[in-house]
């Protein structure tokens, strides 16, 4: 064993308080150290050349560099090692700057401490063995979960890069929430007009396989090599045969709630969500179908000209391999009814949500673009908008901002004036958050052109009086209570993660917050990555977002996926856990604590069942090494013996 020790002066950063010469000469006395010297700037080019030269001259096989924090220059010196022909992991950095020279002023004390630290480094590196990264092959196919605008954007970007994509959507059509919008802010361009061409593109893209009515059930494997079970639910309609003619829907006698239209109007048990649905295929909901409830009907099957209705259809379970996963499960609107009894809690038909209003505004919506009071179908004249219903409200435990409410209220106020010129709109708001390009101008337009009256304050109560709704609030700018008699009240409800996002996150082994929003790996620098390699986030599943942000993030996630899959193989960190199979007793306590499910059971030829580390999954935390009773799992680079030696060295 031939160890070289290099003590960096870091100019005067270290040398001013640590006698690097004395540290070097003390190091020479340590076991197996054959060379030690002090260098002015070790990380500089000449410094590194000095190290490489010494490595050759003294035939070093291990190196200790006493300098700054390894968090600063470990990779630098690992590269130096490689250039010197030494395995990069046979180098140990000792931090005598941040942890020594910079925090002590007494030269004697600091020098003694630096000597201790170097002896610890030498003790540790003595137990080091060469480590080699391994490579795992990468499956080039990508799974995208969720077919909203985020999933669509990511799918198209990745597919355009030539990689096969499977887009899994839980509902009967892609398009997501954006497809339900009438217009988009701040440009007021038609939502369908910009989205539906993209939806059709997905349908026809040669690299995209679209699976609607499908859900991800189980995810196994790891970055580059996920294995996913996808359940395609039976819809009683053969997707291949259905032409989307909608005759079944017209003839179907069973009414069913219209979820696409947020409960405004009804649809049929067999139906197509909306005219631009992709795929344009009917699906049957058994829970509303007369055939399944009463046992007698079958009209849809009789009338279908394409013979596409198949009551015997069963769920299909597909198991597929993917190299990367993009989660784009989006959001849903906060269910306000429980939390806001003082707004009637759903008792008053003329208190509706903004998405219900949006559907009324839509020319292809259930009211044909006419704004109507649900109670009597009359055209409302006085319309009150409430912002932040289920957002920024500590009293119901929801401090988060929905991010889009202010803007879509402005949009709906403007559209209201267009639809009903003699209408009057009031907006109760907390603050107007209009921080996007053209956003502030847009909300001012709602005030100036559409005449919306903005009242700063929360609404305390809504109650019916003589066929109208009294909206009691406060105008905190004037400092007075305000009462507005409204024909229609529209609640800008907050944004929640999509139902089931939390349980999906658990299946994917990625963290999520108390609202079910999925957590990014780093809020600033890794905003589309998750803490699990190979799984990325796009859109509102990560937190409330508007359309431009969603699309930008989707493209960013796509870029990350393309980078990942541009390699045939992935290099894995060698600083991971390793089981000594000969001595494993097969108790699998390691598996219980592993946060990455990186330990699997394997049978040996002699019949023993032992633990095996899946190298590409292991992140090197070392939890298993402590859980292992006979300590036969070691964490490479931090083995028990290395740590024991490191500790013992300083205490001797």
């Amino acid at each position, binding site marked *: 064993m031939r160890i070289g020790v290099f003590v960096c002066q870091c100019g005067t950063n270290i040398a001013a308080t640590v006698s690097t010469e004395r540290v070097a000469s003390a190091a020479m006395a340590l076991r197996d150290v054959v060379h030690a010297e002090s260098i002015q700037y070790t990380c500089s080019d000449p410094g590194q050349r000095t190290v490489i030269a010494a490595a050759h001259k003294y035939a070093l096989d291990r190196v200790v560099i006493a300098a700054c924090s390894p968090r600063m220059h470990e990779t630098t010196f690992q590269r130096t090692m490689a250039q010197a022909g030494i395995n990069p992991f046979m180098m140990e950095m000792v931090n005598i700057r941040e942890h020594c020279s910079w925090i002590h002023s007494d030269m004697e004390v600091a020098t003694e401490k630096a000597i201790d630290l170097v002896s610890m480094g030498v003790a540790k590196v003595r137990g080091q063995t060469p480590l080699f990264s391994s490579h795992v092959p990468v499956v080039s196919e990508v799974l995208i979960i969720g077919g909203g605008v985020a999933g669509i954007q990511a799918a198209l970007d990745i597919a355009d890069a030539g990689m096969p994509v499977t887009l899994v959507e839980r509902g009967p059509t892609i398009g997501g929430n954006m497809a339900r919008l009438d217009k988009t802010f701040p440009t007021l361009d038609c939502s369908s007009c910009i989205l539906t061409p993209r939806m059709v593109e997905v349908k026809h893209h040669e690299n995209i396989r679209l699976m609607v009515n499908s859900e991800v059930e189980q995810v196994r494997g790891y970055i580059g090599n996920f294995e996913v079970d996808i359940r395609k639910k039976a819809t009683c309609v053969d997707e291949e045969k259905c032409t989307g003619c909608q005759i079944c829907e017209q003839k179907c006698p069973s009414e069913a709630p219209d979820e696409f239209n947020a409960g405004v109007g009804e649809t049929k048990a067999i139906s197509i969500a909306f005219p631009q649905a992709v795929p344009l295929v009917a699906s049957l909901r058994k829970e509303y179908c007369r055939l399944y409830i009463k046992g007698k009907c079958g009209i849809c099957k009789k009338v279908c000209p394409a013979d596409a209705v198949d009551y015997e259809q069963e769920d299909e379970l597909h198991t597929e391999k993917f190299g990367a996963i993009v989660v784009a499960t989006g959001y849903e609107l906060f269910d306000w009814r429980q939390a806001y009894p003082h707004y009637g809690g759903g008792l008053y038909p003329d208190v509706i949500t903004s998405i219900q209003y949006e559907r009324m505004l839509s020319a292809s919506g259930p009211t044909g673009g006419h704004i109507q009071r649900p109670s009597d179908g009359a055209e409302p004249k006085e319309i009150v908008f409430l912002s932040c219903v289920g957002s920024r409200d500590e009293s119901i435990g929801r401090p988060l901002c929905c991010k889009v409410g202010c803007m879509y209220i402005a949009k709906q106020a403007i559209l209201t004036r267009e639809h009903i010129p003699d209408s009057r709109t009031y907006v109760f708001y907390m603050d107007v958050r209009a921080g996007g390009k053209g956003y502030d101008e847009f909300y001012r337009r709602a005030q100036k052109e559409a005449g919306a009256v903005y009242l700063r304050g929360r609404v305390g109560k809504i109650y019916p009086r003589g066929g109208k709704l009294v909206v009691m609030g406060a105008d905190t700018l004037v400092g007075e209570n305000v009462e507005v008699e409204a024909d229609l009240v529209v609640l800008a409800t907050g944004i929640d993660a999509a139902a089931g996002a939390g349980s999906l996150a658990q299946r994917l082994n990625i963290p999520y917050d108390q609202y079910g929003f999925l957590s990014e790996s780093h809020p600033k620098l890794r905003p589309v990555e998750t803490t699990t390699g190979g799984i990325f986030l796009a859109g509102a599943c990560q937190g409330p977002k508007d359309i431009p942000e969603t699309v930008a993030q989707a493209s960013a996630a796509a870029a990350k996926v393309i980078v990942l899959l541009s390699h045939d193989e992935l290099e894995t960190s060698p600083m991971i856990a390793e089981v000594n199979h000969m001595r494993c007793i097969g108790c699998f306590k390691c598996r219980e604590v592993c946060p990455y499910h990186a330990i699997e059971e394997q049978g040996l030829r002699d019949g023993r069942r032992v633990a095996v580390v899946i190298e590409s999954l292991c992140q090197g935390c070392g939890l298993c090494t402590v859980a292992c009773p006979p300590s036969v799992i070691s964490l490479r680079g931090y083995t028990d013996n290395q740590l*024991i030696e490191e500790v013992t060295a300083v205490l001797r």
Partner: protein
Amino acid sequence: MNGIVDTIKNVLKETDLVLGWTTDPVTGVATPARFHDEKEAEQAVFDSTCAHNLAVHLPRLKDSRVGIVAKGCDARSVIELIIEHEVQREQLAVIGVGCGSLLDVKKIWRRYGYGVAIKDRDDSLLIGGEQVNRDEFIQRKCHGCLEADPDIYDVIAGEVTGEIPTDTVRPHPLHDMFVSLTPAERRSFWREQFSRCIRCYACREVCPMCFCRDVCIMQTQIPRWAGGAVDAKQSEMIQLIRVNHLAGRCTGCGECERACPVGIPLMLLLDEQNHAIEEMFAYGAGASLKARPPLLVFDVNKDIWGKG
């Protein structure tokens, strides 16, 4: 006796062997035995000298269908072994026996001579024909008894004992002395105790939860937690390893201390740890089949982040 013979015979119909006790012809007290057939089972006994915890054999009989005679304390070990997947419940037939405390045969022998006749009947203990105070000769481990009757069994042989009156549960004989010591005094206490250790590993061998066996880290070089020297420091490290490895797993059966040939009060350490675990996690090893070992799980909401 107690129907133990018939019960074992019955259980043998569905198992490969039954772990139980027989009477040692030389000493006249119970010794562990394996019964493979009806003939062997004729020799089975259960009496107050059946101190051994037979669960220690289970992890090495994974491939067999095993019957085991278990007292209340032994049953806790059986439960813990099932929780840790070392024993398959389906492979196991537990013959529960009620236990009214065990005799410390070694103590009797020391006082009255090796092999002296012991007759233990309903509240009267006759040693060599002489009636003695039974309380004086019961096993140390029975003082802290948690369970007289097994919590897990397929069949009960004989009669159950019933609930243990809590006032009979006594701490370790050295407990009061030990807790009065300062940390420095405890250091010397342990140094003295461990200086007597002869590194026989009996504590490990009798422990049902020490199933690593020949790969035990007490004796390995990789990793090298304890050195090979037979001295107080290394022996102490060995016990620290044991205590650590038994965290949340020790069922308090007391076998280690019973087996220690030099009488080191090992249960002082384990009792304290079990107590701490009970306090921290409301957890007692071997108390319930449904429990999850407390150091293999965590609870974001309940774990208190007091320190730091």
